[in-house]
């Protein structure tokens, strides 16, 4: 038990660190995947089987695939020098912030008067974390969030399509890809007379 906890959590944290630290976004994605899997296992330790499964399937599976595609399409945005161009000052500042907040949260979590925090948790019902229980809750007490979540997905779909998909509303009279393939910084007479696109010569 202990062992598993530490194993999984260390992997998860390592993954998190990887996400933050690795320069190539592609690796960051992979780091996140490992992190997510480890996290799912931690969920299991918390008896949340359904959530854990959902985590792996939905997240580490579907979402990350989407990620990989986009990264592949957009390309390795973070060239090494980019990261380094985040000045050391900024980085240290950020880390200090992070630590400070961590300390605060730690105080909050450990300093609570709540005894239960230091226990293994309450006595559990037999079907705790089972799909049955989840489903029941979703269709009764949390029907509303559940239904609304579906709308969230709808929104996401519409948004993704609208933004990344076809160039909306322009209509057939306007060929879509002319300007995406056209090399940067051509097209206006402004540029013809030697202005860059930001308008400054």
């Amino acid at each position: 038990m202990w062992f598993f906890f530490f194993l999984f959590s260390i992997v998860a944290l390592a993954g998190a660190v990887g996400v933050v630290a690795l320069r190539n976004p592609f690796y960051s994605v992979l780091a996140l995947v490992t992190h997510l899997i480890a996290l799912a296992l931690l969920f299991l330790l918390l008896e949340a089987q359904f959530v854990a499964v959902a985590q792996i399937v939905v997240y580490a599976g579907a979402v990350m695939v989407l990620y990989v595609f986009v990264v592949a399409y957009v390309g390795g945005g973070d060239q090494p020098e980019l990261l380094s161009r985040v000045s050391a000052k900024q980085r240290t500042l950020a880390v200090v912030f992070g630590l400070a907040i961590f300390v605060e949260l730690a105080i909050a979590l450990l300093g609570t008067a709540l005894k239960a925090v230091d226990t293994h948790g309450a006595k559990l019902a037999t079907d705790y974390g089972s799909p049955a229980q989840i489903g029941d809750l979703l269709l009764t007490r949390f029907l509303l969030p559940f239904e609304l979540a579906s709308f969230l997905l709808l929104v996401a779909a519409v948004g993704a399509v609208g933004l990344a998909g076809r160039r909306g509303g322009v209509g057939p009279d306007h060929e879509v890809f002319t300007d995406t393939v056209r090399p940067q910084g051509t097209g206006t007479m402004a540029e013809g007379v030697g202005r860059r696109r930001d308008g400054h010569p």
Partner: protein
Amino acid sequence: MTSVLATAKGPYVDWAALSPLLALLGASLIVLVAGLLGARGAREQGVPLLTLVGFGVAIGCTIWQWDTQKNVISRGMSIDRLSLLAVLLVSVAGIVGTLLAWRSRAAKEIAHGEFFSLLLVSAAGMVVLAAAENLITTFVGLELLSLPLYILCASRMRSERSLEAGLKYLIIGSVGSATMLYGFALIYGATGATDYAGIASAAAKAGFNDDVMFLTGVGLSIVGLAFKSSLAPFHQWTPDVYEGAPTPVTAYMSVATKVAAFAATIRLLDVALGGAFADWKPLWEAIAVASILVGNVGALGQTSLKRMLAYSSIAQAGYLLVGFIVGTAGGVEAVMYYLAVYLFANLAAFSVVIARERETDREDDIAALRGLGTSSPVLAGVMTLAMLSLAGIPATAGFIGKFNLISSAVDGGETWLGIVIVIGSMISLAYYLPVIATMWAGGDPAPARSREDPRTGLPVLAGASPEADELSIEEPLDGIRAAGIEVTVIAAILGVATLVFGIVPQPLFDLVDGAARSLGLS
């Protein structure tokens, strides 16, 4: 989905009470489908019409349900005067937004169906947020509000600014939501309940109102809420997003989001976390003061009207907080009252901005208003009224609103907050009045839109390049150079409303009366 529910041993669902929300959600679906219609005319005229109908129905249902006060779907939401007011205001904002977006370029680029259905969904999200009686519902509502707005902000995909705004909003917004989520988690952890009533009772029972974890949770949630209502120091996304987003979207969200966020704030803190009143009050006071100062000070000397209005909206949010901080029923009513007033003035201002964006090529620069007093007195008059109202000058609704806020502050023993409001208003004069001055002080009016690149004065190949299109933020593709009748009309209506409610304010008072009824405030 109704069939599903029918079979499941679902909870009792009070359809009537839910009707406003359902109207919005349903409309969003219908609009989305309608957007797929082939005929361009159907797309570009029918869809907005349907949207208007949707909002209209929502308003109708609200009026129908005006006096209900109940929790629906197992304490998921509370349909009461507060949430119904929110529905009303949001829907009005939605209608205005729709009219302003009718012929906007943004709607065309992302396709009308998508645009307007997202508008409706976000409205639904606001309603949920305002009505939520449960942390989970609250969170969902928040996202349901935010996600569509992220998209809408970016919906002018040809414009770098629009996309930048969208991305900034998305990232910072998600940080906010994540923070809020963590806060909710802690609250849930400390009380073991997700529904407001449960939280309140648990906290009271366990005497947790000064527990570290509980309070930290409260703190993080406050950060999230403050973020959504763009309060300092969590305001920084506001100016950029407001400036970058398509103006109709800016107009819509500048008011609607506030309505929802404030309703949610009031409900969460007064109902669920009311026990910790003494703890969170000073914090909110600090935030209020900071917002009033930052907002007013930041708006000084801005040349972009949208940016100026963004900062001013930060300040206005600060004013609104005062009414909520004092924690009296009167205060809450004052907040709702001021929201209504703010809605009129702000939307009026934005519609004038849009009109000028379409008529001149000065975009939303203040120079676009030069000589407006001569060239089109109606718009100038509306803008004047809007500015005066925002500044809180008598005979405009804004004055009554401030009056109301201040008197609630004094009544709650927080006179100093009233003075802060006034100091803020003093500063605000320094950026509201110049707008009026540019309109009326004569000078050669801003030139009408031409197809020339304002940066070079050279003609641009129409539509040949995104740069060229960027020059015409709000130009309808079909080359209409006019503000559009609907914009002028709605502007006029809003201006008149600002004036009328400044002279005959009692109706608004009757409207917001009892907004705090279900919050258990004195």
